[in-house]
């Protein structure tokens, strides 16, 4: 091997070094120093709004892109996979030159960021003729920080329920249940017909195991207890939680035996093929089904178990917040107002093929599918609204729930030990 430094390789090396220098220069200008900026994937360079979002599914992404494209202003839209977005969100917000607008969830996560002073106060949008002024009081509360200012712009929300296919129920000769006992009997019946009564996907989406936990807790102990439990005011070893797990255990034989390998989306496949019967999931499930089956979908609310607690439904709310460090608050609020306007909400819901509900009362919902109308009706008639496990607590607590609940589903016999470990892990989270 020739170890001599030839002129050509020297030149090549110099060019390479120069190129690297240029690249470093780019990182320097877009991130303005620190790993935060570089991790933000190019925060706000010069001029215009940077819109960082976690939208991942194809149709909603296309819908949002179309909406952003028709905005009369300079907006750079970066779409990042949800899990990565979740991991990077803190870095985005803390960077010296943060993205201006970010998509995320209402509730405790947004409130935590607001408490750290990282979110832009958007109260002006909620007053007078602001874009959010007409939104419901419940949404306003949900979008408010602890100090009473508004820091979130909700643009759509959806409901959780037990979804099923009308044609399949007809074929199996069954009816949607109205009581908990009827529900268990229905599971038994479908099981006897060789159908997996309950679809679920807790493989790469272990948080799906929290869906049933949340609902059983809401039905047995009520929304108030549920919120307090998730805020660390009760122990996961309480008899109340044990009662929830006892009901959960009754459901285990009825779950799709492959649920451990499926993601939330994979789990809808057996249901589309009539090999699974029902699926407790958010309304986003409709986009997992082939287009010709979407009209066939219907849902019923998880039946009442304890009639003494108020009715409650989970309705996670999505929307946007802005970084406190935005370089142009006026342009940011203008863009947020555009996203929150009824026309854009309507366009997003129609084009994304999901069954989300608009937050603006001015959206004309008469054209929406009967399923969505029924969803609106469900949420209007319920006494309490919760979000979802992670949105009512934190992503850190969600991790502890994922571990505990997936383990419980695989090994219900170790319930007490699992609950103790869950409580210990949760104390670690609350202690921070």
């Amino acid at each position: 091997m020739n170890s001599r430094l030839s002129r050509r390789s020297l030149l090549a090396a110099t060019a390479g070094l120069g190129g690297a220098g240029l690249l470093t220069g780019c990182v320097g200008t877009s991130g303005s120093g620190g790993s935060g900026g570089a991790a933000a994937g190019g925060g706000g360079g010069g001029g215009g709004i940077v819109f960082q979002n976690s939208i991942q599914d194809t149709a909603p992404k296309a819908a949002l892109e179309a909406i952003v494209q028709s905005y009369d202003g300079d907006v750079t839209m970066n779409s990042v996979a949800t899990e990565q977005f979740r991991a990077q969100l803190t870095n985005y917000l803390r960077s010296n030159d943060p993205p201006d607008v970010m998509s995320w969830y209402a509730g405790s996560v947004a409130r935590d960021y607001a408490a750290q002073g990282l979110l832009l106060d958007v109260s002006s949008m909620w007053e007078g003729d602001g874009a959010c002024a007409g939104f419901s009081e419940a949404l306003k509360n949900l979008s408010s920080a602890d100090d009473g200012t508004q820091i979130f712009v909700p643009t759509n929300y959806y409901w959780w329920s037990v979804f099923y296919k009308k044609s399949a129920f007809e074929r199996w000769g069954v009816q949607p249940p109205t009581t908990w006992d009827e529900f268990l009997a229905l599971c038994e019946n479908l099981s006897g017909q060789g159908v997996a009564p309950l679809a679920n996907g807790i493989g790469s989406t272990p948080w799906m195991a929290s869906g049933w936990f949340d609902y059983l807790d809401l039905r047995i102990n009520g929304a108030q207890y549920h919120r307090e439990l998730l805020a660390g005011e009760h122990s996961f070893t309480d008899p109340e939680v044990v009662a929830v797990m006892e009901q959960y255990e009754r459901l285990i034989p009825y779950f799709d035996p492959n649920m451990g390998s499926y993601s939330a989306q994979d789990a809808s496949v057996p249901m589309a093929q009539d090999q699974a019967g029902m699926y407790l999931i958010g309304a986003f499930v409709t986009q997992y089904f082939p287009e010709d089956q979407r009209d066939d979908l219907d849902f019923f609310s998880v039946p009442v178990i304890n009639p003494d607690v108020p009715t409650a439904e989970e309705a996670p709310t999505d929307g946007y917040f802005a970084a406190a460090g935005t370089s142009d608050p006026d342009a940011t609020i203008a863009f947020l107002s555009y996203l929150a306007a009824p026309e854009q909400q309507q366009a997003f819901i129609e084009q994304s093929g999901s069954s989300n509900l608009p937050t603006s009362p001015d959206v004309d919902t008469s054209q929406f599918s009967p399923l969505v109308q029924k969803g609106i009706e469900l949420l209007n008639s319920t006494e309490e609204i919760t979000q979802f496990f992670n949105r009512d607590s934190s992503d850190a607590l969600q991790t502890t729930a994922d571990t505990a609940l997936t383990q419980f589903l695989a090994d219900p016999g170790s319930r007490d030990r699992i609950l103790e470990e869950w409580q210990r892990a949760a104390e670690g989270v609350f202690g921070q």
Partner: protein
Amino acid sequence: MSSDVRAAARPARRGPDGPRPASGARGPARPGGPSLGARLRRVPLLVWVFLLLPLAVELFWVFWPAANSFSLSLTRWDGISPAEPVGLQNFTDLAEDPIFRTALTNNALWVLGFGVLSVVGGLALAVALNKPGRGVGFYRSAIYLPMVVSMAVTGLFWRVMYQPGGPVNAGLEAVGLGSLQRQWLADPDVALAAILVAAVWRQVGYIMVLYLAGLKGCDATLEEAAAVDGASAWQRFWHIVMPQLRGVNTVVFAVTVIDSLRTFDIVWAMTRGGPYNTTQLLSTYMFQQAFTSGNLGYASAIAVVIFVLAIGFIITYLARQARAEEQS
């Protein structure tokens, strides 16, 4: 990867001693000739610039963050509010953390399984495919091919293979072993082994190529002479070929240990440490703690443990290497 770097670095390091027309000193400089100071002074300024620039970059981008993770490991930090010093609390917590213990055990199993399977498999394939024959080139390329896809893609590919009703289960059914079917990535008893198979599937071609290169450098006449003396095939391999592969063995050892210690992507792509943390490695647990749960202090403590383990391996390896060089 590291071996490539090393191979590239070696001639460069020899550079100043090698023939350089510019200096006027023709012929290789003998060690023990001019004093160290004189030799250093003879290095042109440009070379110093070339050496110091990467050093500065390395110091800033690698050593500075690494040093930071040491100080972070003594704090509790969520990434937003100011870090709060907690002394060695993170490490005492680690000692009692059942998930950390699982991850540590899994890491040991992983280094062992990954190392043994890929080295034995790679060596066996290299020996089998070292002989000229019909289609040998095809087999070699086919076995090396998985190496060109990244670990993350390998993970996604094998996730499809392992799906319920996927090729692995369907294959077992087809050959009458239907009773062995299971949910490979959802069953805590087999999930880690299932990931290991995928990782070895990719690594084995790389090790094979390294050994093939080594076998090409073996002196065939020695083996022939041994055959004439009546040595069996196994004796010829073990006593004639293996000693000649010593150089390759060290490279393979280093590559394998380093690759197995830094494993992250394939596990993250396939199970994310699940089901319920049974396939967690130190690296995936560290990532989860840092970026999902936001415990950057605790995650830094795990990083320190990984660092100590890795540095232990590297020092042992370098010491061995130095001893071997002294002996030869």
